[in-house]
Structures are given as C-alpha cells and as structure tokens.
C-alpha cells in the first residue's frame, strides 16, 4: 500500500511514563476513507496512542505519519485538515454554545456554517445556553461539534459517545456514517462493542500497549467461523447445542417436537463475546 492511500501509518510506536510502558510497539495502518475503531480495556494505551497521532504527546520511538506528516513536527496547515475530539472536554464555562462554535469556526478557512454544525449534533435548542448548564451528554456533543466544524479529512474521536443516551448514540452513528460517506477518515476509540460493529470498517484491539488483533468486526478472532449455538426448552430445562449446521439442528428439533420448538434461539458469538474471550486468553498467558 502506498503512502497516499494511507491516512495514518504507524510502526513500532513506543511511549513510557517513567517506568510504565504505556505503548509498546504498536503498528497501525488506516486507509483513507476508512472508519477504524480502537478497542481495549482501561489503561491499554488507546488515548496515549491517539494523542501521539494528534501531536499532543511526544513518542519515545517508532515511525508515525498522519496525512503524510509527522505529527510531532506538524504545523497549522496540518491542523486545518484534522478534527479532534479529546477524551477529556475543554470547558468554556461562561460562553454560549453558539459563541464557542462560531469562535472556533473562525480559525479555519473552509469551516461549515456554525448553526448547521450545531444542528447536526442536535444542540440547536441549546445554542443560546451557557456551556456550563449543559448535561454531560450535551457537553460531549459540543466537543463533537468543535471536532467537525472544519470539515476535517481525518477525524479523531476518543470515546466520543460516553454519556450519550441510546437515541443520541444512534443519531451520532448516523452523523459518523454521513461524514464517512463524504470521504472523512475516522479513527475512534470506544468501549461499546456495538458501536464498533455499527461504524467500523476495521477494528484493532490494544491490550497492555500492544496491538493484539486487527480485523473486520465480522471476522475478529475467527468470529465468522465460530460455531452457532442453538437453544431451546425441554422438560422445563434450558438446553443448548453448539453446531456448525444450525439449520439442520433446528429441522431435527422441529421434527422431534412436531412443529414449534419451545423458546428456540439461534445465536453466534457477539463481538463482545469474542473480545472478552480474546482479552481473557491474553490474561492467562501472562
């Protein structure tokens, strides 16, 4: 893959805080236009990695290229092309939502209409409220608004939907899909596996500073090849069967029961199941 096709290219990234090795040799390649989700438990090194890519933290070693530039040396022209939603918010307590978004739009040559951005993140009826009066989820939406106001080529989102209610999360997903359709490359971290599954073209799992798997959500950890689990109730007890041929199993059950199978379910492991299993194995190896 050539460099022009990659929005982010990282190899051998390392970073320690004193004697704590937070990032220990991470490799990462994100294609232009891709939505890539970084998963991993608390303290795995996601924020450290992302903030090195954003140019906020200095790395100890490794090669990093973001939109063809080393973020440690990047200047204003590079910043015009990226959007950032940090894990921690920046609070402008005494300003109104509209004032903050309008002010940040001034910093960019091709900013979107501030009112339209506020509308897109669902804060229109709060445009005239002071930011310290917003709820947690509403503050997060303001962060997202500031991250996308410059129509970035590449958008970093560090746990963007923390504190969103379920409806707000769906709306946010729609927004991300729209941005992706318009060609925006997106690197997001999240603890919500359904979010990664809904949005990401590929996911990467980081654990203890190392990338332990990179794959599509459907194929992570061999999920697409995993056996199905057929469950039903018989003699007052829950029963199940692991099988590679669930359709067959259901037909046999149906014949046995002469029609309806009580409480029939056919499930495959969720992304969360696979993810937890993957981290569990990792723990055992330690």
């Amino acid at each position, binding site marked *: 893959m050539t460099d022009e096709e990659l929005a982010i290219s990282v190899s051998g990234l390392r*970073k320690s*805080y004193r004697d704590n090795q937070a990032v220990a040799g991470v490799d990462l390649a994100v294609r232009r236009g891709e939505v890539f989700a970084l998963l991993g438990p608390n303290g795995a090194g996601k924020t*450290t990695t992302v*903030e090195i890519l*954003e140019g*906020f*933290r200095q790395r100890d070693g490794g090669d990093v290229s973001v939109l063809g530039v080393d973020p440690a040396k990047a200047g*204003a*022209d590079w*910043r*015009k092309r990226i959007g*950032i939603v*940090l894990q*921690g*918010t*920046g*609070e*402008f*307590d*005494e*300003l109104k939502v509209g*004032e903050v978004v309008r*002010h*940040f739009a*001034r*910093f*960019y*040559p091709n*900013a979107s209409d501030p009112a339209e951005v506020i509308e897109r993140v669902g804060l229109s009826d709060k445009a005239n409220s*002071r930011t310290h009066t917003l709820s947690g989820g509403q503050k997060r939406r303001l962060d997202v608004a*500031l991250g996308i106001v*410059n129509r970035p080529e590449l958008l970093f989102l560090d746990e963007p939907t923390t504190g969103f209610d379920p409806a707000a999360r769906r709306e946010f997903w729609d927004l991300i899909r729209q941005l992706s359709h318009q060609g925006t490359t997106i690197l997001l971290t999240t603890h919500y596996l359904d979010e990664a599954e809904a949005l990401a073209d590929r996911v990467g799992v980081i654990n203890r500073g190392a990338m332990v798997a990179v794959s599509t959500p459907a194929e992570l950890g061999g999920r697409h090849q995993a056996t199905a689990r057929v469950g039903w109730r018989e003699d007052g007890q829950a029963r199940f069967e692991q099988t590679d041929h669930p359709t067959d199993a259901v037909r046999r059950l149906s014949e046995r029961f002469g029609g309806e199978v009580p409480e029939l379910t056919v499930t495959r492991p969720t992304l969360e199941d696979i993810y937890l299993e993957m981290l569990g194995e990792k723990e055992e190896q330690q």
Partner: protein
Amino acid sequence: MSDSGLSLALAQGGIEFKQFVRTRESLVFTLLFPVMLMLIFGSIFSDVIITPPGVSPAVTLSQYFVTGMIASGIMSTGFQNLAITIPIERDRGVLKRYRSTPMPKWIYFAGKILNVAVLALLSIVLLLAVAVAFYDITLPDTGQKWFTFAWVSVLGLTACTLCGIAFSGVAKSGRSGPAVVTPIALILQFTSGVFFEYSDLPPWMQQFAALFPLKWMCQGLRSVFLPADFAAQEVGGSYELGKVALVLGAWCVGGLVLCLLGFRWTTRRDG
C-alpha cells in the same frame, strides 16, 4: 472564510472579555476589590499629614495611598488576573483545545492582552474617579504629566501582564493559583509604598521592593499626582523617572523571555 490575524485577535479579545465580565468572582476580585481597599484605607489615612510641618501644599497619607492603589489596580488586572486564570483554563483543557486548531499561538496572547488593556483602563478610571471624588487628588494639569501617566501605566501594565503569563507556567494547578499569587501581590504592596510610605521602610525592604515593578509604578504615579516639591521626600530626593522607565522596560523584556521559555499549553498529567 478564515479571518485575518488582526480580526482574529480582536475576536479572541472579545471572547476573553465576555468570559471575564460573565464571571462574577473575577469581576469583583480584579476590579472592585482595589476600589474597596481604596475606600477603606483612604478614609483611615485621610487625617495623616506626611509632609513636614509648615510645608505647603501639605500631602496626606491617603493621597499617597491612592496613587499606590492605582498602581496596584494595574498590577491586579495584569499580574494576578492572568497568573490565576490561565492555569485554570489549562486545567480545564481550554488551552489544549486551542492547540488542536490552527490558531496561531500569538492570537491567544493577543486576546489576553487586549482584555487586560480594557480592564486596566476600566480599573484606572474607576479608581481615579474615587480618588478625585474623595481624596483630594486632582487630574494632571499639564500635557507633560498626562504623558508620564500614560507611559508609566502602559509600561507597568505590559510588565505585569507578561509576568502574569510567565507565572502561569510555574503554577502546578489552577486550584493552587490564588494561594500562591495573592501573597506575592500583598508582599509587594506592603514593601513598595502602597500601604506604607516607602521612605519610612527599613532599607533592606526598600532594596527588595526596588527589584520589582510595583515600587517603580507607584513612584512614577506619585510624580503625576503629588506636588513636585514632594519629590524631596522620595528616597532618592527625586521621582527618578528615568530609572522608572529603565526598570519597567527591563521587566518587560525579562517577562517576555520567561513567557517564551515557560509557557505550557497542557498540564503535566497530559503527558
């Protein structure tokens, strides 16, 4: 369309001013507190004559004090204000947020400086109005004195502003700010001839205060508001305006260097 540098700086100044006037604590602390002090001490000192008996025009301690209070007001809007608010903004992630945009760094400082300039002007007008109304201070009657008033204020404010910005790099967290900055300001006020007559202080205290800008700002303002004859009671026997300019100028240069070296956009825990 992205704005030009100048209009961006003005917009940044506007944002700073909005935030300032909407925060009641800073409004009270920075602008009204010096006025309250002036009213309290001005009234206590108004019967104390500090010129030798028979000398005319006589000067009261409250006249002496209000010139020092105007200098303190300038210091308060420049130094205390910035040394306290910038670390708070850094803690809240506001500075990091600015750094995530292509905004040129100087725009942030320009916004602070514009805000401080407006606040200092407000502060000086307020304090001067009280001084003229209650404490026998008259506005300068010559162009020469207005000129001195202007340059002492501008140079003093510049030095204090730069020191305030530089000091923000030293503060560990926003919470510790007031606890560190307020005593510094108080000590300077006690030793620089605000609450006490400078010439009455022990020499070591005088020498200490003479290292810092406030003493020279007070002295420069006394040359504007107290009679020319009073200069004989200054420690050097004159208002030493040349020295005032020199010391304040040196602090401007030193403050600028410290700003460039020590300013931090992110907290230590941001890695």
